């Protein structure tokens, strides 16, 4: 077993009164594609922000090659961030810049490469995601799927060894979804990247993953191979994967005390979302 690239050790995080993680543990190994699943509001996207050092945790440790994120100074944190490419939910292209300028920005900022070389790189990466003919368009002139592909091309410009994808296929049509999935798989095969994919698109998840992890109630309720997730009888995993309404899985957004507010009584939550009054 190789040394983990990223280790999450006993992560606890609250936003105000709302618990996001409690004693969260996970190892991410080099070269693997780990797909993180979970209901809306379960903290999947937040986890990527924690890994990037954008959000401080209440307690616990995020270890990058054994070094805690908390112990990193600005230079080390920048170096970690430069080694990671992030595809945001919306693509997060800079709206005031054309695609060409968006892709060139990180390279201009962090290297001494001349403009001609940078422009060549921009064209290569835009060709890779199939957007070269749109090179001088502003993000507002692109469709949702194109923005995501543009965001992915920008994330690749610094040639990262690690890629984080935040809902890469959410809101896309089946063809665009297949294009993005294909890109992610190609990148892994050709560049050997380590990927963390946050999604609740089950089809994409099974296609992309080496391992899957299901986030529920602030913890990983299940972590395992694609085979495990396909065959397990764990009611929580089964309900999530089969998309059934009845079962232990409750979306955090559904857990608010709707009945209590209506009836004026406090409803207590018990593990796995079964409710008692």
């Amino acid at each position: 077993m190789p040394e983990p690239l990223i280790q999450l050790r006993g992560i606890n995080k609250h936003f105000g009164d709302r618990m996001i993680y409690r004693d969260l543990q996970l190892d991410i190994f080099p070269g693997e594609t780990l797909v993180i699943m979970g209901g809306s509001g379960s903290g999947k996207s937040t986890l990527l922000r924690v890994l990037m050092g954008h959000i401080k945790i209440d307690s616990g440790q995020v270890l990058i090659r054994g070094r805690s994120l908390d112990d990193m100074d600005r230079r080390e944190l920048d170096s970690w961030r430069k080694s990671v490419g992030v595809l945001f939910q919306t693509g997060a292209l800079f709206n005031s810049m054309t695609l060409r300028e968006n892709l060139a920005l990180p390279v201009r900022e962090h290297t001494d490469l001349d403009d001609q070389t940078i422009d060549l790189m921009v064209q290569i990466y835009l060709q890779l995601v199939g957007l070269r003919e749109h090179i001088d368009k502003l993000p507002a002139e692109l469709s949702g799927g194109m923005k995501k592909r543009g965001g992915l091309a920008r994330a690749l410009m610094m040639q990262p060894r690690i890629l984080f994808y935040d809902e890469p296929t959410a809101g896309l049509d089946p063809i665009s979804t297949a294009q993005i999935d294909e890109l992610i798989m190609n990148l892994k095969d050709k560049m050997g990247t380590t990927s963390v994919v946050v999604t609740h698109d089950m089809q994409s998840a099974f296609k992309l993953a080496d391992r899957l992890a299901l986030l529920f109630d602030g913890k990983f309720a299940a972590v395992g191979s694609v085979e495990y997730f396909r065959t397990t009888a764990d009611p929580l995993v089964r309900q999530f994967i089969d998309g059934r309404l009845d079962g232990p899985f409750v979306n955090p957004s559904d857990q608010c005390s709707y009945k209590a507010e209506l009836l004026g009584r406090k409803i207590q939550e018990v593990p796995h979302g079964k409710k008692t009054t």
Partner: protein
Amino acid sequence: MHAAIEFFGDFFYLLLDTLRAIGPALSSGRGRHLAWRNLWIQMNRIGVESIPIVALVMFCIGAILAMQIAPELAQFGIVPPTADVVALATFREMGPLVSAVVMTGFGGAAIAAEIGTMVVGEEIEAMEALAIDPIRFLVVPRVLAGLLMMVCLTVVGDLAAMFGGLVASALLLHLGSMQYTHHALAILKVGDFVTGLIKAGVFGVLITAIACFMGLKVRGGAEGVGLNTSKTVVFTIVALILVDLIFTSVFFYLGV
């Protein structure tokens, strides 16, 4: 109370971080030409586009001042010192303050809305993920542009107000333009001009720093952008008046 302390604390840290980032942003090899290009773009957006409005507003204010003051002075049989009062009021007070208010509405609100929209669109997070410091990349060019262009705008505003006063004096008060100019130049000291420009520079920093701060603090989508944009205008105008009071008190105490 706790929220207010946190708010001012955060703003203070933003100013500190901006100050720290100015040197590297303009002098280091990394992204240097981008910083200069950004500065140039912002100077154009915040300053150059405000020139016609500042000139128009200050021209009117100069004319208004002349017409308000002349009848009072006429009671004592002395109209020419109208130019003295217009000059002093403009260079020491009205020039920097009114130009700053115009820049708040023109540039401050635009900066807050732009940065706020970037926050909502995950652009700031994307910037951090690309290891690009938003303070260095976004705040520094805007604050420097604010400082430089506010000084330039004030000079334009001062001249426009003097010209407005001159036109009103010539047309309505029958005060000759030579006499007006002579009086204005005789009363003005270098100190009046310099104190006005010092104030203008500080106002420029204040306007842009508050706008960037409020933009970066946007939460909750389009509604948050709208809310913080209007708050930016209100907070900035209050801050401008308070800082103006402090400056005027200090200059008064020092006898400048």
